[in-house]
């Protein structure tokens, strides 16, 4: 992947600076032009810790100027997310309360729309937006492994082993998605559609990287994972039915049917064995778990509303 197209003064100056590493990087503008400029800049800075860019030296991941910008953007993002969070609804943490909280979520449903109403063009647009996440799928949660107490650590790896294909590269979830995209004639390389990623898509991905990359936010990372898994089984079935209705290829349909069964397991593991034991063994993380879970649903609701708005739908 090469650096995406800049979307404002900050991303333009930042990408220029990243290309100049390991030469001395020039000072950068302090502020982004708008949400898209900020979100794209942070997405690129986080990406340096995943796979990087062909036109950026690997040194850039730890360049102090780049890290300074990253930290500023992360603080702003975290504050925005915290300002939206109404707080721990229960005090402490209980897995059944978390699962009930996710079940009670009545945010707008993209999967119901895809299942029954969406056009092929709208569905392709959704797949391109989702590809920003699905092509790295389990990676943001993997950062948290060394930061957990022993029981939560074992449980997270048990879940992640399945995400990463149970040892079979062909079943690795992000690879399943890539093959489905490819079979549909879509681009399947990481970041392929980053230039059309909406600010909501970028923010959703940035939040996961933020939670994953900061040990302080380990509870939020696992709470996000639990809410994500618990809001996946039924929607994945609807996605599969919608894709079948619209004549999408079997591999792409298969990606979603795989998630029906996998996430019925993962939601139990994440809510109980990961978050449940984390809250017991590291009680200071209970609020973080709820913050992450709320943020997951909130980001999805904001993303869904933005897509319905683009499509002029009254959902």
């Amino acid at each position, binding site marked *: 992947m090469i650096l995406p197209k800049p979307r404002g003064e900050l991303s333009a100056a930042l990408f220029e600076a990243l290309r100049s590493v390991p030469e001395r990087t020039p000072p950068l503008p302090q502020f982004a032009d708008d949400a898209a400029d900020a979100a794209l800049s942070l997405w690129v800075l986080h990406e340096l810790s995943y796979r990087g860019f062909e036109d950026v030296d690997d040194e850039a991941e730890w360049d102090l100027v780049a890290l300074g910008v990253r930290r500023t953007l992360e603080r702003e993002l975290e504050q925005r997310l915290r300002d939206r969070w109404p707080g721990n609804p229960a005090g402490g943490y209980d897995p059944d309360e978390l699962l009930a909280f996710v079940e009670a979520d009545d945010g707008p449903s993209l999967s119901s729309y895809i299942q029954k109403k969406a056009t092929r063009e709208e569905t392709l647009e959704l797949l391109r937006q989702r590809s920003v996440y699905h092509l790295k799928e389990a990676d943001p949660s993997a950062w948290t492994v060394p930061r957990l107490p022993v029981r939560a650590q074992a449980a997270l790896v*048990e879940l992640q082993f*399945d995400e990463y294909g149970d040892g079979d590269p062909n079943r690795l979830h992000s690879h399943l998605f890539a093959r489905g995209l490819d079979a549909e004639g879509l681009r399947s390389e990481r970041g392929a559609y980053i230039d059309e990623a909406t600010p909501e898509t970028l923010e959703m991905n940035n939040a996961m990287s933020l939670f994953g990359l900061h040990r302080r936010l380990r509870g939020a990372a696992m709470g996000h994972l639990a809410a994500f898994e618990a809001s996946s089984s039924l929607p994945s079935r609807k996605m599969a039915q919608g894709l079948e209705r619209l004549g999408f290829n079997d591999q792409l349909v298969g990606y979603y049917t795989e998630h029906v069964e996998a996430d*019925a*397991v993962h939601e139990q593991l994440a809510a109980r064995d990961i978050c449940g034991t984390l809250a017991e063994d590291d009680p200071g993380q209970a609020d973080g778990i709820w913050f992450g879970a709320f943020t997951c649903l909130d980001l999805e609701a904001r993303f869904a509303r933005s897509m319905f708005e683009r499509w002029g739908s009254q959902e």
Partner: protein
Amino acid sequence: MSGPPQHDHPDVVLCPGGPVLVRGAHTVQDADGQVHEVRRPVVALCRCAKSARLPFCDGTHKLLPEGARP
């Protein structure tokens, strides 16, 4: 001093209101006698009998009223 603890790690776990998790199964026989291959380390088997992918859980229990859940 008790040292690092020995943790419970059961092979079969009944989830309140949800599926039963089974660890380390390679095959599962459903109520019709058909045998299904299991490829994941933990599998969730349906307990509400309403799953569209029996014998596996597909999350359908969440659509049932509280009293009708396992």
